């Protein structure tokens, strides 16, 4: 009667992961999840900014249909009463739960994360979320700032914790409640990091000595980049440490050493996130739910780490639109596990020796985040929503993406065939 679903959505995570071939990052737990999953190496968001991307993939509609290009409208009022992935699962007998940042907060999700439409109970937000942009970063002078680069002593933080640590604790609590109640569930966990500010437990810096951190391969503004395509990364310019650098607008470059510090902190934040994901998946094992739960891991969009002289996401470049996307489906992406067998034992990023990243199945076919809705419906054995007509403002349930389950068991040759045997773009064109 259908699997449970655990969907993990990470804020501003580009595929800086060992399983995606990054040799610097330490992400053992996400790599382990990938080794048991189907991993898509060419997955793209439809718009590289928080609310528009999340509303798009959660409703299965493109931005031109949600008509949300900024943060200031609610699709059910502004465009159409579109159903969402969690709403559809809720209507099909699931208990749907949201922890952390799944919908973007504010008017774009009706100030309620689209509750009660999408969720069976009020969404959980960590109490320390409100300090995210406060002056909590200790500067060299000992004073507190609202910096971009913000490694912290967690014991000094408000509540002696951080939002994603609280989210993991709440998600684990909910997993145990679902297990006790034998309730079929759809649990969405939204992690805030590595979204700016890059605020993470300072011990993660040890994983990335600054001398090992390089600049982006192309840290300059490309000569023939149209001015309209460039994004001037205004948000990070407002952080205290960046503001103090007085970089000229719009094309001035950050000092190289500071660029390396940003990249160092992004990687450190990714390992901190990997730890949280590891604890969450370990709890799935503990609750005996790994054999009956589909796990999806993805992000709302990527982030520029200095490429093209850019920081942030606000563009159509691959570094901003490409996202990790992987599906663990018990019995499909792995053979079924025996009762009690551990699928996701927690791996400590500080001690786990990374010799070879475990390999799962990866597909390099180009796919879109807007396909998540039909794909999840098909994987859970629900009726796959119909394809939307050309204009679908009046249609509550349909999708503008195509299920990608057909690629799960497709051989590489079959995927290539889908490319119509076109090995020479110009010849075919």
């Amino acid at each position, binding site marked *: 009667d259908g699997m449970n679903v655990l969907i993990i959505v990470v804020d501003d995570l580009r595929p800086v992961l060992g399983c995606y071939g990054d040799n610097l990052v330490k992400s053992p737990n996400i790599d382990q999840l990938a080794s048991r999953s189907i991993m898509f190496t060419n997955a793209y968001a*439809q*718009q590289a900014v928080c609310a528009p991307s999340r509303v798009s993939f959660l409703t299965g509609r493109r931005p031109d249909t949600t008509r949300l290009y900024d943060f200031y409208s609610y699709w059910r009022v502004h465009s159409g009463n579109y159903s969402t992935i969690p709403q559809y699962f809720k209507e099909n007998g699931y208990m749907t739960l949201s922890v952390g940042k799944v919908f973007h907060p504010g008017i774009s999700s009706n100030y309620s994360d689209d509750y009660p439409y999408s969720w069976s109970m009020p969404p959980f937000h960590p109490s320390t979320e409100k300090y995210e942009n406060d002056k909590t970063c200790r500067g060299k002078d000992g004073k507190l700032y609202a910096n971009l680069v913000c490694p912290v002593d967690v014991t000094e933080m408000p509540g002696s914790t951080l939002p994603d640590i609280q989210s993991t604790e709440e998600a684990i609590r909910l997993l145990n409640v679902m297990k006790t109640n034998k309730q079929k569930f759809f649990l969405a966990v939204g992690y805030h990091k590595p979204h700016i500010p890059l605020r993470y437990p300072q011990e993660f810096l040890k994983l990335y000595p600054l001398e090992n951190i390089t600049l982006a391969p192309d840290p300059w503004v490309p000569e023939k980049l149209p*001015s309209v395509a460039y994004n*001037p990364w205004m948000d990070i310019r407002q952080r205290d440490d960046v503001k103090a650098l007085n970089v000229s607008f*719009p*094309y001035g470059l950050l000092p190289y050493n500071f660029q390396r510090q940003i990249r160092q902190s992004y990687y450190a934040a990714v390992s901190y996130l990997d730890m949280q994901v590891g604890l969450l998946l370990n709890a799935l094992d503990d609750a005996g739910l790994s054999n009956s739960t589909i796990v999806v891991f993805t992000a709302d969009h990527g982030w520029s780490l200095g490429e*093209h002289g850019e920081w942030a996401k606000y563009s159509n470049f691959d570094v901003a*639109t490409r996202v990790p996307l992987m599906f663990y489906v018990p019995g499909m992406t792995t053979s079924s596990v025996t009762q009690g067998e551990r699928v996701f034992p927690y791996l400590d990023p500080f001690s786990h020796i990374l010799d070879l990243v475990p390999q799962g199945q990866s597909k390099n076919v180009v796919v*879109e985040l807007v396909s998540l809705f039909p794909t999840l419906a098909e994987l859970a054995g629900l009726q796959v929503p119909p394809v939307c007509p050309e204009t679908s403002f009046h249609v509550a349930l349909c999708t503008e993406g195509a299920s990608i389950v057909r690629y799960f068991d497709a051989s590489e040759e079959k995927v290539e065939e889908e490319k119509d045997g076109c090995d020479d773009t110009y010849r075919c064109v």
Partner: protein
Amino acid sequence: NGEPVAFSQYPRPADTPQWNSDKPRLKDIRIMGYSVRTIDYRYTVWVRFNPDNFSADFKDVHAGELYMMETDPNQDCNIYNNTSHGVFFKKIF
């Protein structure tokens, strides 16, 4: 040719960077960048956009980008205005 593609888009208030270029409000959007991404290339056209009726005018192209992934995986060399490549794609799109 039926090859899987990914579409993405990004709004802009103006042709040159300004204070609200990253996150323009709907009413301030004047240009929309539409991208088509395949395994082989990313093609983007930045066209005039009317926020009042959400229409994009593909006859009013403000700028274009074309990157061939095989030779330029980091998308540093925009060849949209090169005669051979750009003309091909302009014709198609």
